[in-house]
């Protein structure tokens, strides 16, 4: 069940990996999903694509076409090929090329610092850090430091083929001071592993979701430091996500544990959708482990207590600020209004409904909240369109 993403719209990638390949203007670019981190001074933003992928013959780029599915990309240029896949065990993107020099061209030196090290080439570029090793072929890389720019020259990595015309390149995404782990799987084994992972992940999702949405959910799945999986709304622009997005994204799963895992990835904020979404999950008959149900109950209890303590006024529950409604600019909202909100009351009440239902395993869900109003575009909106 190979899915072929349109790389001009959706990156080639896989879950829980920052590596991506995107199509910008007809050529493929290597990219890394960005992670927010503090810095001394603000740095200028970079485009999503960090290295343009080129196939060189006699120093000149060859025009190429490519074919991409959920596990591999194959680039064809004249009589040459370049194949790309993920190696999850090593957190690397692997390249195999034949009859051509593989070039990764950074195009722009801003904010780059690169170093040729005895065991490979390190490039810090736009918030990402690559470490390149070529088990086959020869790397050429200029890491000249430019004093006045506080950085290195434009990073251009060439890997010339060996005597057999072969190139193998490993692009690691590693934390600082980490020895690159050796690859143990063949290229073909990596492809199979990626396919199997996508297939297994897809089994957790509701029937009826399109292949495109399945792929995007898998691509955008990220494991947080708290151990939960979340579904980021956009892998390329931002890894940021919200509790509301996770609540809606959890509806994509038919597996109860997977659904609750995503639901609980970010503590409930506002509007309080967790109870409603959890009620829909229970009503669907999805089974979930005792541990998942207990965790869900605890979070709902915590959240309800917060609403009772901080957003209840004689008359009912209220939103204190516009953004708490889930909308940037709700037309009826007034500052300092303390206006009771009927739908909010319904949502909060559902927390207790679900906590009770988790005990006796039955839930009476009459509420029908229109969730589409809380998301306008992106993957989360696509999920909502397709789930029943």
């Amino acid at each position, binding site marked *: 069940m190979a899915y072929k993403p349109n790389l001009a719209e959706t990156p080639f990638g896989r879950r829980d990996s920052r590596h991506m390949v995107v199509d910008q203007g007809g050529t493929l670019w290597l990219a890394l999903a960005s992670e927010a981190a503090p810095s001394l001074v603000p740095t200028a933003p970079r485009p999503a694509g960090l290295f343009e992928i080129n196939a060189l013959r006699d120093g000149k780029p060859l025009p190429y076409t490519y074919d991409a599915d959920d596990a591999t990309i194959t680039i064809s240029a004249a009589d040459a090929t370049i194949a790309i896949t993920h190696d999850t065990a090593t957190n690397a993107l692997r390249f195999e090329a034949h009859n051509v020099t593989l070039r990764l061209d950074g195009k722009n030196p801003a904010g780059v610092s690169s170093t040729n090290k005895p065991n490979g080439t390190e490039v810090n570029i736009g918030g990402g850090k690559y470490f390149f090793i070529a088990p086959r072929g020869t790397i050429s890389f200029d890491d000249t430091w430019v004093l006045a720019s*506080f950085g290195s020259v434009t990073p251009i990595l060439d890997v010339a083929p060996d005597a057999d015309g072969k190139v193998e390149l490993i692009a690691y995404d590693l934390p600082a001071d980490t020895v690159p782990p050796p690859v143990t799987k063949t290229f073909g084994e990596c492809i199979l592993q990626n396919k199997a992972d996508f297939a297994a992940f897809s089994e957790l999702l509701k029937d009826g979701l399109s292949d495109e949405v399945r792929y995007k959910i898998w691509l955008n799945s990220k494991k947080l430091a708290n151990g939960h999986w979340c579904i980021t709304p956009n892998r390329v622009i931002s890894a940021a996500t919200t509790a509301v997005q996770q609540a809606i994204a959890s509806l994509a799963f038919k597996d109860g544990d997977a659904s609750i895992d995503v639901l609980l990835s970010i503590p409930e904020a506002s509007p309080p959708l967790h109870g409603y979404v959890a009620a829909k999950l229970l009503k669907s008959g999805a089974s979930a482990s005792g541990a998942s149900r207990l965790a869900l109950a605890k979070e709902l209890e915590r959240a309800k207590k917060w609403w009772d303590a901080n957003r209840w006024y004689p008359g009912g529950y209220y939103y*204190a*600020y516009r*953004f708490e409604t889930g909308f940037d600019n709700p037309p009826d909202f007034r500052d300092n209004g303390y206006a009771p909100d009927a739908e909010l009351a319904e949502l909060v009440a559902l927390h207790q409904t679900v906590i009770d239902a988790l005990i006796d395993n039955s839930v009476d869900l009459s509420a029908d909240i229109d969730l589409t109003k809380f998301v306008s575009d992106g993957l989360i909106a696509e999920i909502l369109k397709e789930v029943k």
Partner: protein
Amino acid sequence: MSKSQVKFGTHEKFPLIRAPFARRGSVYYVYEDFYKHGQLKFGMAKHAEMISGTDFLFDIEFLANGIPVPYEYYADEGSIKLTHGYRWVEIAITDRQHLRVRGYEAGVRFTLNSSNGNGARALRGTRSLKDVGWETEFGKYGKLNFVPIVGSLHIESPYSYEKGVYERAEFEFIADAKTRTFDGAIHEYDGDELYPFGEYEPFDKLVADNKADFAEFKAKYRKVAKGYEQAADYAIYTVWSYRINPRGYIKSPAIMFSLQWAIVAASWQQSYNAMPMQRDLKEAWRQICLMFDYQDERTGRVDGMLAFTGAAASMQPPFQGFALEFILRNVGDDFISAEEAAKMYPKFARWVNYWTTYRNAGRGDDVTAIFSPHESGWDDASNFQDGFPANDPNNLTFLVLLMECVALLAKKAGDIAVSDEWYARANKLTQTIIDEFWDGEKFATMVKGKRVDSMSLADFQPIILGKRLPQHIIDKVAERVLAPGEWLTEIGLASESMKSPLVTFGISFVCGRVVAPQNMIIAVGLQAAGKQKEAEIIARLFCDNVKEKGMILGFAPYDHFPLTGEPAPDQPMPFATDGWPWTTWCANGFLTLASSVIDA
């Protein structure tokens, strides 16, 4: 009320254009707009955005009968007072996440005014909390709560439904009609509750307490040489007011680089700050050890910079040994107990071993190879013009001193065998620095076995090895750094020889400018080597300039390039490497020089 130790003001030597009014333990600051003189602004360091690019900044307007009028101001360590004729407004900051503001025959208005041209966009809502005050929500910037204690509060925050933003956000404290005074508070917080602040003490008591707190902090420092006392007060004020309480990722009090620009606690700067704190050795020791609370368990690496939200991905030199050795040389080691020594020496050792493992040059010894200039601390020093990996003798020198500290601490802890091993390592590395990196004129950085042909001041930094170096090297370093026309200028040592074609006074840190940390390091090194006279020359030149100009990180020594005679391009102000706001990095360098080098 006790006498002011520092003075800033409209008619004072230093206005608040480059130095903020702030207080130990608070993220608040008030400063005078660089471009619109006479306009005070109020901001917060918590969000870590520079004042040149943040939506969270307020204009402070002085109101007479409700109308904004021009004002003058005077600030000391206790409070800042704004005046318009006989009318006045006074602001005092607490260390309990709020400030107090009062006035007589006046009002004050805080108007949200983004420095990005976004007006009041940071505001996301306001509401009354009845008995507590007016809560205002600013999204990623957190919340403020405006509390009228005497008088009243008026808020103007019209919302445009068409644009989906607040058009204005004005928070005005208004005097009580009878008493003609007002008194209020502004709290900052993130969650649902105010920080537990106790009670609103009488305003005058708060001011007195602030002064007493400053005086107590000042007592941590040795007296400075005659003639530098006033400047020392400004330096200590800078350090005191940039010292933040634990918050977010930062687990213990730390001293920020700046509150308005580089809003981080830089690793090696914590040790710089320790060096002059010789009357509170417990605090000095805490400062030196502070970063080890964040030491990586796997590698032993110590983070380079701490922000409220986390550690910035960076690394800075292993400065702790140099700082501790300096203190030990001045006051001895009695202040380090056997228990403390036992606790800390393994951590120091892991930090040394981080460098000799993950930056090892692969020679089978402790010589390292660094991968970027940031690892040396000198971001654009010309000794790195040949690139990386670079065998930097300065890194090795810091490691020698850190190794000796490990040895000393191990000895105090009773681990004599361990101590002996570390001394042996340090001695061997010292000899390597002398034998391989000294080229007869300077300590040369090496890249791929070749000496870098550099004219950087950093080439003399291993002088901090002091009398471990042979006398001929000591003499040569002293001779070279003080040779006319090269590094020696009227305001201290320039970071690059004026005979170098690479000199720049532009967007640059250490490729020409006279910068505080290098002057301090070289002077302290010369002193340690027995060259007190030379050390003092440098110290006085640098400190005399800072006395006049303020706690600024780097100075262009000339308005032209001496090598060519060409004028140096005008730099638009403000300017990051000029240390647009005052920095603690200059303050601590000044204090070390003025208290321990001049007249030592």
